[in-house]
């Protein structure tokens, strides 16, 4: 399953860090963070519940880049 989220982040490098962190989160198959459109496309693993996975994604992103936000 794929979902798209709006995000807020300050720089392209920070967006790249968010992408890395999201990819490493359990339950996420693949992720693309688009700095220019401020959007994040997340592909979840089969059987993973986005509602359960996304808070973990957010906290992982906060760890690498404090100044980011994902609008869930």
């Amino acid at each position: 399953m794929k979902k798209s989220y709006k995000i807020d982040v300050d720089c392209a490098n920070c967006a790249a860090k968010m992408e890395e962190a999201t990819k490493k989160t359990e339950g996420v198959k693949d992720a693309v963070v688009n700095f220019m459109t401020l959007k994040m496309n997340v592909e979840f693993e089969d059987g993973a519940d986005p509602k359960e996975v996304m808070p973990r994604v957010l906290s992982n992103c906060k760890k690498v880049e404090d100044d980011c936000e994902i609008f869930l």
Partner: protein
Amino acid sequence: MNKKQKKTLLRIICSAVLLILLRFLPVTGIIRFFLYMIPYLLIGYDVLRKAFKGIKNRQPMDESLLMCVATMGAIILGLYEDGTGGRGDYVEAVAVMLFYQIGEWFQSVAVGKSRRNITELMDIRPDYANIETENGIEQVDPDEVETGTIIYVKPGEKIPIDGIVISGSGSLDTAALTGESLPRNISEGDEVISGCINLTTPLRIRTTKEFGESTVSKILDLVENASSRKSKSENFITRFARVYTPAVVFSALALALLPPLFRICAMGLAPMWGSYIYRALSFLVISCPCALVVSIPLTFFAGIGGASHAGILIKGSNYLETLSEVDTVVFDKTGTLTKGSFEVDGVHHSPIEESALIEIAALAESASTHPISQSLIKAYGAKPDRSRVTDIEEIAGQGIKARIDGKDIAVGNTKLMKAVGAFYIECPDDTGTIIHVSEDGKYMGHIVISDIVKPNSGEAISRLKAYGVQKTVMLTGDASKIADKVASELHVDEVHSELLPADKVSIVDRLITEHQGKGKLAFVGDGINDAPVLSRADIGIAMGAMGSDAAIEAADIVLMDDDPLKTADAIRIAGKTMRIVKENIVFAIGIKILCLLFSALGLAGMWLAVFADVGVMIICVLNSIRALLDPGRKAKKA
């Protein structure tokens, strides 16, 4: 400006004013130190916090940490001088932090502004659809409209969903989709696509697709996800930044420690710790890679945005990069360089007016649905008056005999002419279908019908050459005679004719393997029957995507209308974008290396360091935005 940007601006102004005031205050010693700490913390508290969190989360190598180490180092040097009876310099530390924040602020405003600009260019998303309910006309979310629903589009509104006009006629502004400024005329029964703006009269449209499947959704999806396919240059920058920052930190450390140690041990001189630490700190400030990290993706995004405004959709920045390296362009003939529909190309040997001959032929063919008949009727320009025609007799493989205005007319090929005993003249220009006409057994001349070359095809080929394309190739399934004529008319370098669809793939394959050097090959087709070739070529360009899903899927670049000039436009935009990317890379890295050298040798202080960081970034960002402006077209009204 958003709230965060306004707040930062306020902090910048306050601390700048404080900094100036403090220079005139006659205080000394530790009080002076604390006073200077007010603007420093005011402007830098978030950077300090971020650096601290970075260390805590084991992500220390970022620019916040560089700024903290550099400014705190400068402050400690100042304290040391104060302590040894001198007058420490705290201004520099505060100024460096201040300029860093100005740079960040500028970057954030510029990126936000260009982001808005680009999304405005692509502002084709319809907000609502008007549908008829029991309570009259209601506005609903386009997502909720089912296929086959009748929607109303008032003048000035966007068509929200693809469909067919069932009543009303008028003109549509398709500029947002095709970049074409001339309005398109439509009437009952015509297919219309979403994203066009209705200009004149109210229209009733029966939808043929769901919103998610409509042209406008597909285009938005394509453009918004475009920059997720990253180019080599972008990947290079990300990798570069990853290696570069740690490398600079260790060099700075070496610069602070090694020369003083060398001076003590090998030369027996005073170590000059302060001076070398200061140089190392400047080194750190210069090193921020932000100019590159920000401006390169911004350039690609601006290039893709500018192109989509011109009706050229590029699926990713990697394709933009490849497109700029194209030196061979392969065209499909039918539908790409030619219109793909038959038209009257000429009238020869006619003793009467050309239009009169076409009128006779159109009348004779008025009952037929054959494409040739249709093109004759189209050339006639009006609906044939069927009452003038009687005794229509269709002779298979020959043509049509009929009585028109009391005369026996025969319209067909040479066999028919022989049959009616007319002395026909063979057409030497054997590149189309020849329609002979006779009246009461007397030869009246012939009409040549062929697939017409698009008016811009020749111009497109010559512009491609001007933009550095070395070779143009045309592929077609048509007979070689017709292909050669078109090719010589357009000055195409190489022609392959009488091909089956599978042959096209093998020819493109051969062209790619035989090709020397690093130039890339682009294939331009209309998306019908050539999906395999589109995907085999280095770059597949599909033309006239309005409505053709297969083309959007298979191609890397989609031209919204079927004007071959857009191919040349696409290559020009790609070239310009890549030029800006290279300029930025060379400029940013060049200036940084120069400044790093200067500061290592002690020729430059923190002031130059701040310019190297902030100034270079501002210049690069401004340069990136140029990619959005396409000089080939008029700039969009502000």
